[in-house]
């Protein structure tokens, strides 16, 4: 299996001195669905921000064989689509169309290509016909779908999702999960939602204190109550 993301010895500290990541190494293969789970403040979101170069440190991240550095940023960002947790952060344009078109326009697509990419992405997430609506008048479930479309419109090979199901009602959550399952791309999901992880991912990485604790098949890890409760993912036994 070809490796699409390789992280080797990644360490990162925030300017206030807090060590968020300490010597993290992991690799993700083509077409995998990997979940990164761990308690609040474990450094999961910091890790995600490294995957498309928003945070960068000591050149420890490689995407499709290329090191993430200033020269490759533009290319990396078109390959790795990052969906943020709060769709209100992701949808900043006056209309849904503008939001979904933002990535393709920045990637230098022609006007025709941009329109096609937007139509295809909105179709994929089931939000066709919402082009001229404004982002803040949508329901949270709709916002999450459009946020996904804003990234899909760049046809990324790797989809990185931060808490895709947080605050959704069960109906919206399961319809989002089945939508994600149908997307033929490599997926990296950060979540506390073990139902989502069980339904979507076959591999799970447990993350705590800025380190990888274990990395294994979803079935094994999700059934290991002691491991989960030791890292704040299940009630204490």
């Amino acid at each position, binding site marked *: 299996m070809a490796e699409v993301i390789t992280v080797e010895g990644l360490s990162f500290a925030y300017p206030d001195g807090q060590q968020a990541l300490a010597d993290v190494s992991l690799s993700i293969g083509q077409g995998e669905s990997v979940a990164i789970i761990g308690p609040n403040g474990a450094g999961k979101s910091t890790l995600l921000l490294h995957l498309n170069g928003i945070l960068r440190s000591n050149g420890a991240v490689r995407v499709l064989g290329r090191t993430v550095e200033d020269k490759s940023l533009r290319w990396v960002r*078109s390959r790795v689509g990052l969906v943020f947790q709060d769709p209100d*952060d992701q949808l*900043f344009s006056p209309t849904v169309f503008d939001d979904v078109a*933002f990535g393709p326009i920045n990637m230098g697509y022609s006007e025709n290509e941009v329109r096609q990419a937007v139509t295809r992405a909105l179709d994929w997430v089931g939000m066709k016909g919402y082009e001229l609506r*404004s982002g803040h008048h949508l329901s949270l479930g709709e916002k999450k779908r459009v946020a996904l479309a804003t990234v899909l419109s760049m046809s990324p090979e790797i989809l990185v999702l931060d808490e895709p199901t947080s605050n959704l009602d069960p109906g919206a959550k399961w319809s989002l999960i089945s939508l994600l399952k149908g997307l033929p791309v490599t997926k990296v999901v950060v979540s506390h939602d073990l139902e989502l992880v069980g339904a979507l991912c076959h591999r799970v990485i447990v993350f705590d204190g800025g380190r990888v604790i274990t990395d294994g098949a979803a079935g094994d890890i999700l059934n290991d109550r002691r491991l989960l409760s030791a890292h704040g993912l299940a009630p204490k036994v």
Partner: protein
Amino acid sequence: MKHGFLDKYSDRDSLIHRLDPRTKLITSLLLITAVVLTPPDRWPAYTLYLVILAVLLILSRVPVFYVLKRSLVIMPFVLMIAIFIPFFKEGEVAGSYNIWLWQLSVSHSGLQVLVNILIKAWLSIISLILLTATTRLADLLKGLERLRMPKVIVMLMSFMYRYIFVLVDEAMRLKQARDSRSFGGKRLWRIRTLGNMIGSLFIRSYERGERVYAAMVARGFDGRSRTLNPLHFRPADAYFGLSLSLILVFSSVINLL
């Protein structure tokens, strides 16, 4: 939470709605310039402006009551600035009052200036309401951008419009959280709480700004704003723009004579 729209009625359809936003921006600006530059005693000119606005209003099918109600919003601001003019302007005295040690006198010319300022402000705000009620804000911003308004300012306005509701929601949540734990208390204490709320609102907006920027950067933003251009001038724009400009030029020539 439910909010009013700034550009309510802008999704209706009418002759005015279909015009290119650039046409509407330029003609509104022309009309306002004409209103502002008209000397105070030219009543026929003001009547003409009012008739123009009334005709546009009827053509646009925006409810008249809505426009009138919104136009009152500007009055407190204008009054706050202009209310003192009659007292300071020199001229024939219309009335004089003794209040304790002071003597206040109101001049005729001062009152005239005050009334004139109110009329100018009211006509200008009506034309702006007409502009925003018939143009979707997204289109208005595109129009501004195509008219060479600096892109940074267009982006700022677009973010302001997008996030003002998010911020209002956050402020409401803060207020509810305070009210549910607050049982009166001294005034100083309440003012301090309010100060803390404003501070925490500021920090939240600042952090949201950082997250939004990260979301932009993640989709290839590099500081340059790029947009598609969906705007097209049509013959109607030329007719509308030309005829309105002609009327305005005509009226100002008559004013000068």
